[in-house]
């Protein structure tokens, strides 16, 4: 049939249409918008590079990048260590493995909003569980969410708790790809548990570690709902994430042009970071 040749095009046409509308056009429009000032209800006004000069002088934006960095520095190592530890443990012959795995995974599927509301209470200065425990063992209270030095680390800890289940699963899969006879050979040579871990396990699961790092990084860059609900970006803007700031500029002040500029810059930043991480790890291999 004649139409047969066109069938593939019909099949992909919805995607093309969707792509043009929701990806191609927005990217182009986004770039155009960065040169304008617009609050949606009034006409767009061309302002040249004004948004860019503002971006480079914006202390809130630079603060948000610093905050993101702090988040990642705490979150990623914590994530890897805990996930790896628990995955190793689960990989042994133990009973109720399914139950433990399910328990660790539970926070992953629950909405971030639930986790945030919950932890907001746990972190409460007066009545929160953590401070209750601290005072019970004789230590002083910590201003988890009200002390500017603690706020972002607190969010990083919560984010680790929420996501580590996913990474445990990923590490489990990775651990199970390590051929058993490697370990058997090592046992014959009298290797200790630690030696086996560092010499065999770690190198073999390097790709998994890399994936965890990249996924955590992208997750860290997308941080929004946690600071939005828990702290509103405070105290003293210590938990202002870049996405939260972009959202604020666009949907709170309605500085659409400036918000688009921030978004563009941030997107390029993310791509660069991921590319660098890739190069870094590929070189290792």
């Amino acid at each position, binding site marked *: 049939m004649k139409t047969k040749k066109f*069938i593939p095009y019909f099949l992909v046409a*919805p995607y093309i249409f969707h792509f043009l509308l929701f990806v191609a056009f927005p990217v182009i429009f986004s770039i155009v918008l960065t040169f304008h*000032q617009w609050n*949606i*209800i009034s006409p767009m006004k061309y302002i040249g590079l004004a948004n860019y000069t503002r971006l480079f002088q914006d202390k809130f934006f630079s603060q948000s990048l610093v905050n993101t960095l702090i988040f990642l520095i705490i979150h990623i190592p914590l994530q890897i260590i805990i996930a790896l530890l628990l995955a190793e443990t689960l990989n042994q012959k133990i009973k109720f493995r399914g139950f433990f795995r399910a328990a660790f995974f539970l926070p992953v599927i629950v909405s971030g909003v639930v986790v945030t509301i919950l932890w907001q209470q746990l972190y409460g200065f007066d009545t929160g569980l953590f401070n209750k425990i601290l005072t019970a063992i004789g230590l002083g209270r910590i201003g988890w969410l009200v002390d500017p030095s603690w706020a972002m680390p607190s969010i990083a800890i919560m984010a680790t708790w929420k996501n580590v289940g996913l990474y445990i699963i990923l590490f489990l899969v990775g651990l199970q790809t390590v051929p058993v006879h490697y370990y058997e050979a090592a046992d014959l040579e009298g290797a200790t548990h630690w030696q086996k871990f560092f010499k065999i396990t770690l190198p073999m699961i390097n790709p998994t570690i890399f994936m965890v790092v990249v996924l955590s990084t992208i997750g860290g860059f997308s941080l929004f709902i946690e600071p939005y609900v828990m702290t*509103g970006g405070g105290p*003293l803007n210590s938990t202002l994430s870049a996405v939260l700031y972009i959202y604020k500029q666009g949907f709170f*002040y309605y500085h659409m042009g400036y918000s688009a500029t921030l978004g563009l810059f941030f997107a390029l930043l993310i791509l660069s970071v991921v590319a660098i991480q890739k190069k870094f790890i590929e070189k290792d291999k």
Partner: protein
Amino acid sequence: MRNQFLIILFSVLIILLLISCGSQKERKSNQLLFWSSNNTQEIDFARYIVNEWNKHSKSGKVSFQPVPEGQSSEEIILAAVVGKTTPDVYSNMWQGDVEDYARAGVLVAFDTLKGFNDFIFSRCDSSVIREVTSPDGHIYQIPWKINPIMLLYNKQIVAGLGFKEPPANYEQFNFASEKYKNENIDSHGYVKKWFGYSEVLVTWWQRFFDFYPLYLAASNGAPLVKDYKAAFDNKYAVEVFSFLRNLYQHNYFAKERLSARQDVFLSSIIATRFTGSWEILHAEKFKPEGFEYSFAHMPVPNDHQGPVYTYGDPKNIVIFKTCSNPQLAWDFIHFMIDKKNDLKLSQLTNQLPRRKGLINDSLFAEYFENNPKMIEFARQSEYVRGTDPYPNLTEVFDIISQEYEECVIYGKKAPEDAIHEAAKQVNLLYIK
């Protein structure tokens, strides 16, 4: 066959897309849509007004609905403006938002409507009218009602501290705070009760309940923004920041968020609060036996002269340009704000209309007799300010809030520096 199915799918998709592009609600020119706020009492008032109007009007009918529930009514209005689905009349517009919409060209200028100019000067003070006139000379909003922010205080506690009158200036306020603190501190030095409380929030509108009314009180109603420049870089703003910072540093005001507990004023955990007349309805319902409270003006600097102003949280009425019959809309609004209906507003919602001479008005005499606590508010209503007629006020308050957090709450900046910085940021804001 199968491919035809796909073709049909696309066509349907495209048609749906085209259909959903902007569906306008066609309203006949003698029908009006009126949006009220979604506060229960105000809905009752709106229903009353609309029924009365429809009963007697010959020129057109009005239907009303409360502004749709959403994140905030401001957002809903913005969405409506953007989607061109605005009502004809809206009665809950915050004064600070009007200028942005006026500049976008979506509001009708009242001074172009017949009967407006005559009426408005009979209802409102000339200073009020000046306040709501835009820089371009037109008037895009009608000052409808106000909720002056005042000092709510627990009568017994204040008397117990040795005060015959509630503290009127910063010195007295600090003195009372210190005394109250010392009576309520436990052996570990942990303060359990505070003389006052203001939400430790950086949200921009929180300043309506601390910085802004205090600033207006201290400065006799000075503007925040004038001629597209910050007008608050003065000693009054610095004094207010100092006063508030002091309250937090000495733990006279709690730094922790007390709102997670039950009403802290009614349970005597705090003795005072900066708030409006809406507290009355709440307090009457939930106050414990024998609890007595009243209202006084905001505290002022020790060397203050003259009457004490405050922030009035004004809500105003606007007509959107999508209205096909603005004259009819104005006639309806005229009805809504005539003296009889202004009285009805107070009776139903316990809020005051922004009308001059309330205290001495014979029509309102009975109302004040039945609601003595409102007399303080009526007296205060002569000395009330709204917001300055400039755009982007949300951002102005947000800038002030950022400095507020650093200086007042965390004590990391001196008041002068905080005010300077805020003024600088505001000036940058208006350059664009």
